[in-house]
């Protein structure tokens, strides 16, 4: 870190990524509130613990091998090259740069920003499977999506040298696909094997509405996710870099913020587009659901998610319209899939994240058609076919398929679904009984003291 400018840039970048991490923590708080609010009283504590304990499990596994995967796999491997062990070397769990090191201020905060994305991916799945999955099964699935599947997709499509960027012109600046579509697809794969909650569907196949026990908590949780989403967006950028540092085709010496692909954008642009796509989603979510608070809030989220792939470049009006369009499609698809395939997605996660993310990638291919996907020579430009293939890879290949396979294995080992009697009694039955007994004991003691 020699020279004042270099030192300032390094310390600014270090602090920039650090600041995104506590912000993104709010996403997880929001998901917990949302899930607990959506579950019935008899399942509260297990629902909360199921989501909370993915934090340590995804964290340690992301440290052990997730981070290495990101740096080792941009080439496939064997699509545009082999395993990039040279780049991955400094990002192994046993590398000196993973601990306190005066020569490296960035790896730690960069690792943590990616880790918070990992939590989000796992947390998206968590909400959809509430009230019937075994916690132990979910935590294995959380490690698979949080420390393996999503980070492979990031290496492929969310890395300046990823093969999808090179060959397909894949563009997904704020993770419509690399976080949301994959997590939605993964959740759907698990749900197909897991099955619906008891009583969700009537004998004639019509779905019943299992209403959230606390709609206020659900909406507040979604609101909290919006707050955390600011950190998510900011973490997707490189805050400041000079063209010489990029080493691509950009000429001159104007420093800039860039996307993860090192293509220029501005923090101002993504701030406006975040708000406009949120607004488009909220407006359409409200109208489509006839003012239903849950779907209005979810619509805001779906709006951001749909526009995220191209929010580094869209005009704000594009962001608003695209956000609204994705929200409408996600809302309609949720109920169509529920009715047609008897999928019980308890919080609409597959729709809000999966379908909206998929649609957002496809729209981005048309709206940004021909724009360079990379500052480097020889990369494909953004195009509809590349984005569509990318959406398939995210939702199905790295999302649905791994989720379905791991869930099938867990089901075969009788580890996936809680026993029927426990589902009816409630996951918190034993602790609720203890609580009631303790309360009765205290009341009896108090009465005796009168």
């Amino acid at each position, binding site marked *: *870190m*020699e020279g004042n400018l270099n030192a300032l840039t390094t310390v600014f970048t270090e602090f920039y990524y650090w600041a995104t991490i506590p912000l993104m923590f709010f996403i997880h708080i929001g998901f917990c509130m949302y899930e607990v609010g959506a579950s*019935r*009283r*008899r399942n509260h504590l297990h629902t909360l613990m199921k989501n909370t304990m993915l934090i340590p*499990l995804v964290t*340690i*596994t992301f*440290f*052990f091998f997730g981070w290495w995967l990101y740096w080792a796999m941009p080439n496939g491997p064997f699509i545009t090259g082999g395993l990039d062990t040279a780049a991955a070397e400094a990002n192994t*769990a*046993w*590398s*000196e*740069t*993973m*601990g*306190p*090191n*005066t*020569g*490296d201020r960035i790896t730690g905060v960069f690792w943590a920003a990616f880790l918070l994305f990992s939590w989000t991916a796992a947390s998206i799945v968590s909400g959809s499977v509430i009230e019937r999955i*075994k*916690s*132990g099964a979910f*935590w*294995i699935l959380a490690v698979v999506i949080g420390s393996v599947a999503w980070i492979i997709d990031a290496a492929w499509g969310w890395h300046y040298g990823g093969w999808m960027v090179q060959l397909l012109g894949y563009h997904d600046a704020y993770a419509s696909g690399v976080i949301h579509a994959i997590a939605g697809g993964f959740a759907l794969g698990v749900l197909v094997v897991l099955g619906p909650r008891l009583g969700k569907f009537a004998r004639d196949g019509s779905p019943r509405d299992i209403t959230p026990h606390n709609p206020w908590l659900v909406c507040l949780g979604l609101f909290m996710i919006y707050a955390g989403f600011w950190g998510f967006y900011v973490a997707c950028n490189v805050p400041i870099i000079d063209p010489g540092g990029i080493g691509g085709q950009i000429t001159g010496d104007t420093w800039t913020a860039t996307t993860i692909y090192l293509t220029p954008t501005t923090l101002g642009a993504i701030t406006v587009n975040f708000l406009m796509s949120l607004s488009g989603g909220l407006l359409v979510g409200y109208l489509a659901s006839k003012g239903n608070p849950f779907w209005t809030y979810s619509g805001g989220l779906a709006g951001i998610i749909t526009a995220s792939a191209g929010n580094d470049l869209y005009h704000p009006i594009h962001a608003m319209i695209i956000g609204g369009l994705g929200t409408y499609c996600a809302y309609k698809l949720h109920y169509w899939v529920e009715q047609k395939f008897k999928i019980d997605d308890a919080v609409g996660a597959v729709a809000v994240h999966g379908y909206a993310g998929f649609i957002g990638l496809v729209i981005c291919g048309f709206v940004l058609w021909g724009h360079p996907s990379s500052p480097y020579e020889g990369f494909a430009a953004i195009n509809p076919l590349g984005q569509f293939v990318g959406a398939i890879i995210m939702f199905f290949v790295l999302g649905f398929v791994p989720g379905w396979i791991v869930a099938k294995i867990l089901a075969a080992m009788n*580890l996936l679904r*809680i*026993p029927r*009697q*426990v589902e*009816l*009694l*409630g996951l918190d*039955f*034993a602790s609720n009984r203890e609580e009631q007994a303790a309360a009765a004991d205290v009341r009896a003691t108090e009465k005796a003291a009168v």
Partner: protein
Amino acid sequence: MATTGIESWAVDLKDIGAIYPFQGTEGLFVLAGVVLWLGWHLIQIRAENDEYDGIISRHGDDASINEALEGE
């Protein structure tokens, strides 16, 4: 001899890298961490299955379930 390898700050920081203790043993610690992680899953899954078995054996009859559902 300090565990961190740093015995004085009378140094140029650009000449220093890692400053955590027991450098050179990272691989062993990672291995221990992986074993703990896998062991945690095994213990947790066994405990969760035992918990459900216990609930079913004590309260899994139809009368108890109906009573619990009415209290919901």
